[in-house]
């Protein structure tokens, strides 16, 4: 049984996304900087895939992050890494962005439902 105290330090939300998505979520108050440690990454045309991968791995290894939000179109670039993440914490959620609407076909939960009913 998981106890609340075991996860009391996991309360940050990290985000990997385009500038508008990150700005929006930072406006909501999730941004946190400690020295050189940030809990967000702005991905633009200059950001390399290796940088995204590196940040994703860093966020999933950190013990103070409870949720990692990543734009669906960015998650596509590191699909293998996202799909291989099978730990309960941090929870990874793919979110839509300004230019890429939410696509239910790429939703992991709805994919599971389809698999369950054998479609």
């Amino acid at each position, binding site marked *: *049984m*998981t*106890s*609340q105290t075991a*996860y*009391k330090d*996991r*309360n*940050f*939300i990290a985000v990997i996304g385009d*500038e*508008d998505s*990150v*700005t*929006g*979520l*930072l*406006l*909501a*108050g*999730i*941004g*946190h*900087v400690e020295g050189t440690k940030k*809990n967000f990454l*702005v991905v633009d045309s200059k950001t390399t895939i290796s940088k995204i991968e590196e940040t994703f791995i860093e966020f999933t290894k950190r013990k103070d992050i*409870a*949720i990692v*939000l990543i734009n669906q179109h960015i998650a596509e670039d590191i699909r293998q890494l996202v799909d291989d993440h099978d730990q*309960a*914490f941090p*929870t990874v*959620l793919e*979110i*839509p962005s*300004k230019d890429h*609407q*939410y696509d*239910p076909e790429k*939703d992991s*939960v*709805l994919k*599971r*439902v389809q698999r*369950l009913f054998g479609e």
Partner: protein
Amino acid sequence: MEDICSKLDQVLEEYLNLISTYQEQWKQYSKETEGGFFQLAHSKYTMGHNRLSQDQYDGRMQANTRVLISPNTGLETNKDSWIQFTLTSGHLDDSINTEDNMSSSSLRRRTAHEFEKKEKDGTENTEKPLIKRRTRDPLNWFGVLVPSSLRESQRHFKQGFTGIINIINLRNEIIHKEAEYQALKKEKEKLIEANKKEQELKKENEKLIETNQKELDD
């Protein structure tokens, strides 16, 4: 057998209801963020593109929106639990954003207050300054007088973020329900197989009795 079938139906119904709510939540979230992006674009138009970019983020920002993790046991306590996230605002620990506390205005106010007291009492005030826990509103990164569209955008994103937490909680509940459904399905399959074997045994016994009867008759 009937009992397990009705249980399975009930779990499936709950599962489908959860999926329907999940899709509904996504729709609501998409609507909120659409509004947020629209208002953000409007703010960029009025403020200028350069004044609303990542360069303006505060390098000392502290999260004032966080989550708490707790196990949810649902209504029936004997069942396995799933993880639930709860949104919290404000600081949870002692990490205080001292940047605002040391601002010149608060110092000025304090000294003025002390000076008045000193005049009244004629003694020196030795009480320690009161440290207030305050976090900066991210809106202020982009200026003191920000357009109303940016405030509106922030409202949309805050609302949307609540939606994200709901979506994650629903997802955990769906996965939990799916496991419950699959366990019941397996149990049902086992029962069906056991029933089949029982019937086969019955048939074999009947055949044996028949052949014995025939042998006896002969």
